[in-house]
């Protein structure tokens, strides 16, 4: 039963991520990204981490991808007219990349088998209380540092997005004198 659910959502995640990468229309790519993230959230739940799965949907799908969509819609990013599509070099690079990725997957799987203690897809659920306790006792310093990092990011975004104050590198200095 769990294997069936895993297969369905893993297939969905892979198919949707292929759409994200390959589709010409950026809005469709973003929607496919939503589907990918949702499928990955389900896989998180299957692995025994429902909290991470829910947070994935809440934060990533619910806020971050919405911001992606904002940018795409407001900047009216059109369909991608790719001049490079079908170029010979792209084909060989794709083959090379897939071989590398395949090698990485085989390496990861074989290392898991060597030190295997788990018994297949049914793992114990990570309890929310255990996660919270560990986060706020053992990993308190990294947690606070991450908070500080987010604060720095917010300040940086505010500074980067503000209009420059008047008289400091204004774009059209001649416009005010043009009126008779």
């Amino acid at each position, binding site marked *: 039963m769990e294997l069936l659910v895993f297969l369905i959502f893993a297939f969905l995640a892979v198919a949707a991520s292929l759409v994200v990468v390959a589709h010409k229309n950026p809005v469709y790519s973003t929607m496919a990204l939503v589907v990918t993230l949702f499928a990955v959230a389900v896989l998180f739940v299957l692995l025994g981490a429902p909290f991470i799965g829910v947070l994935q*949907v*809440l934060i990533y799908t*619910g806020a971050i991808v*919405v911001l992606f969509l*904002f940018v795409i819609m407001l900047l009216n990013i059109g369909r991608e007219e790719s001049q490079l599509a079908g170029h010979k070099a792209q084909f060989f690079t794709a083959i090379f990349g897939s071989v590398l990725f395949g090698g990485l997957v085989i390496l990861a799987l074989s290392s898991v088998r060597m030190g295997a203690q788990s018994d297949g897809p049914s793992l114990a659920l990570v309890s*929310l209380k255990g996660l919270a306790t560990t986060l706020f006792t053992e990993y308190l310093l990294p947690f606070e540092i991450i908070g500080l990092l987010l604060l720095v990011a917010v300040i940086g975004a505010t500074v980067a997005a503000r209009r420059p104050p008047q008289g400091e590198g204004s774009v059209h200095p001649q416009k005010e004198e043009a009126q008779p």
Partner: protein
Amino acid sequence: MNVDVLVTVVKAVVVLVLLLQVAPIMIWVERRGSAFMQDRPGPNRLGPFGLFQGLADAVKFLFKEDVTPALADKPLYLAAPVLALLPAFTTSVVLPWGPNFHWGDKDYRFIIADADTGVLLFLALASLGVYSLVMAGYASNNKFSLLGSIRASAQLISYELAMTVSVLAVVIPVNSFNLGDVVEYQRTHVWNFLPQFLGFLVFSVAAFAETNRLPFDLPEAESELIAGFHTEYSAMRFAAFFMAEYTSMAALSALGVTLYFGGWSLPWINYEGLGWIGVAIGLGTLLAKVAVCMFIFVWVRWTFPRFRYDQLMRLGWKFLLPVAILNLIAVAAMTLAGWL
């Protein structure tokens, strides 16, 4: 194992049937209620007190011509109404709809998805509601729809934050995200809206904003944007948006009632000794509380003028979020002090 699945299916069917009744009933309540407030009769032709108006509306929606704009982005245009119904119905799986009941040889809770991450799952699924608005506005190939959907998405993600923080404050004294535990906590302590009144206010305001109801209904502002993001939708597709709005109002009301007003419980009734009658009383209590909330939604709609967009954003970020954080700190302090 089989009995568990059967019980879950029965719970899901009961909840689904209840949620499907919301839209037709609300059509009548909205139109008669608004008429009453505006000192006019309202629909009174179809059936006694106009009670069959909902049926007439449903038939109208079914038989209307389904127009699709020629230059609309077909897949997104067709998917948007379907996606609108998704958060409205799926969020109700984590709500406790009644007291525990006994079936076969086990006790079951009346929650369809009794997960540890209860409320967070509700918020996560509710946050998916933005996508139907965005897709509808973008795919309609219409300036007004696009404007409406951009306003809607900005509004929704801003007020989501305030709502999440106010919900977190409720979770702190209960020590669990599970909504069944929240109700159990309120059965033994005072209902949450008294010690957490600030949080309740923030949640109510955010609930109005999340469901795009007046005074926050800029996304579908009739006098400004024709019909906002659902301008280009007719017949059943519009009915889907319409139904999704009312159902998400009901689900959010049910969440608010569960978090702040004791959910399905009344403080002086002993549900354990009453068995199935107790379940019926609990379910009826919850539905009555939700009905009061829905009436308040209608009441507020026909009382207040609409917020301007910048006023709306200012309210969400500069007032509600700090108040919600203040509430969170206060509740944390009270819990540490042992008062809650």
